[in-house]
């Protein structure tokens, strides 16, 4: 075979592989939009469900998901970033830090339903938070911790070594160096990780199944100790547990969830792009 021909074949194969990756995303989007767009209305987005979820809107589920995501981020981001700072800036490469890193990698591989059971055991039962926004947020927070820590670590490690050397050589303490010459430059990466974690937390069903999600609760939560509806679980319920729900309502709910997650990811991309343009080293 001539080099030209092999080149052509390789190119085609690579292109097809790429296309195959994009295709499912496009098809999923197309189907959901086609079948669900007709359900989207002001009332659908901002009113309570009625008549056993066959009518009305999904407002409590949207709001519940936002609360859960916010709670998860409030818990996981400070904890994760502080842990990452410790791992990158303070700990030397010893057995303990290697163990911690291994634990983080493993944490990322734990199936989400296991997080759900864990949350049920710890937060709902042991700490007596009950099935509540607090329990659900904490469970989701632990689930996204690996994402936050890993991206924060990468962001910190990508800050050039010499920023630290220069800062220390000017008489700054180690913490001042981290605070003034490392963290500010790692912020975009940290934010990106945060938003990716946000998207993941918004979409998961299993971790909230036992810890917070209400089957049918047509009112808004009053405190963090209340149960709430949430989009992913609501979608599961109306798709499999309740007969007689119009197809466009099911797909409409999926569309709202998808739009929420995509919007968050888009925000991450825009943010990363804008910070990258400012980067000057």
């Amino acid at each position, binding site marked *: 075979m001539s080099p030209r021909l092999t080149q052509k074949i390789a190119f085609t194969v690579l292109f097809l592989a790429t296309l195959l990756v994009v295709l499912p995303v496009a098809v999923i989007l197309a189907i959901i939009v086609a079948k669900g767009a007709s359900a989207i209305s002001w009332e659908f987005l901002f009113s309570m469900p009625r008549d056993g979820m066959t009518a009305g809107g999904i407002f409590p589920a949207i709001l519940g998901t936002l609360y859960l995501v916010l709670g998860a981020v409030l818990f996981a981001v400070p904890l994760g970033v502080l842990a990452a700072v410790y791992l990158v800036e303070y700990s030397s490469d010893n057995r303990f830090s290697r163990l911690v890193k291994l634990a983080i990698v493993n944490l990322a591989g734990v199936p989400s339903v296991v997080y759900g059971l864990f949350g049920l055991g710890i937060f709902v039962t042991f700490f007596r938070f009950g099935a509540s926004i607090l329990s659900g947020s904490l469970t989701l927070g632990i689930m996204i911790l690996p994402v936050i820590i890993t991206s924060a670590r990468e962001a910190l490690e990508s800050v050039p070594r010499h920023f630290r050397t220069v800062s220390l050589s*000017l*008489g700054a303490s180690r913490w001042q160096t981290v605070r003034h010459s490392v963290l500010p430059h790692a912020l975009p990466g940290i934010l990106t990780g945060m938003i990716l974690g946000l998207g993941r937390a918004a979409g998961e069903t299993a971790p909230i199944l036992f810890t917070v999600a209400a089957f049918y609760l047509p009112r808004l939560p009053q405190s963090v100790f209340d149960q709430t509806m949430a989009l992913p679980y609501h979608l599961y319920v109306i798709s499999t547990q309740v007969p007689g729900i119009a197809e466009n309502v099911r797909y409409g709910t999926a569309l709202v969830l998808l739009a929420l997650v995509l919007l968050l990811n888009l925000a991450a991309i825009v943010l990363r792009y804008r910070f990258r343009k400012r980067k000057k080293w």
Partner: protein
Amino acid sequence: MVAAAAKFAISGLHVHYGKICALRDLNLDIRAHEIFTVIGPANSGKSTFLNCLNRLIDLAPASRLSGEIRLDGVDIRAGLEVESLRRKVGIVFALPLPLPISIYENIVYGLRMQGIRDAAVLDEAVERSLRESYLWDEVKDRLRSPAMNLSGGQQQRLCMARILAGRPDVLLFDEPTSGLDPISTARIEETMLVLKEKYTIVLVTNNVAQAARVGDRTAFFLMSEMVELSETSRMFTTPVDQRTSDYITGKFG
């Protein structure tokens, strides 16, 4: 008399990186207000020596020091906070390394870390240090613009200003002109000659001619040891050791 004027007194200094010996049994004094130059080929231990003087060596993983370094009679490891040591002993690195902030903020960085907030004090330090490093006229109208926009030579003088702002005692230069053109190099060298009136300067260089131009005394390092230390003029005319003579005449290195 000589002993009284010693800025740095180094005795029995050994440095190891893990099992590798980087500096063996170093004994020397650095006098106040001299330019003490260190020459030698790569891996001779000269940068290691420099990094010992402000304890940046502590950052290198698995580095171990033994022996004693005294600054004005005070043991720099036992008797001094590392932050205050580094404020007294500033370093200019081989490459110009401004932080990705404005010219102004680069210069006041060390001062801010000391907790100085008074704008008048900071402004004064910026102007004084930029004048001392002969950069003031070139940048006085754009102090708030990013330091990364300056040319290489300007950046290196900014790095000098950044140290001078903190009123140090000793300036360390680690091959400060290795990335610069001849004109920028000449300006840096002129600046050093003026600065030694006020400060003590330790210059590590792989440019033998530079040592000859600016050094008061010169030490020749080879394979982790100091081979010879003498007045610069003497070293470059009548070196005692054959290896020194070979190095400065370009037979190896």
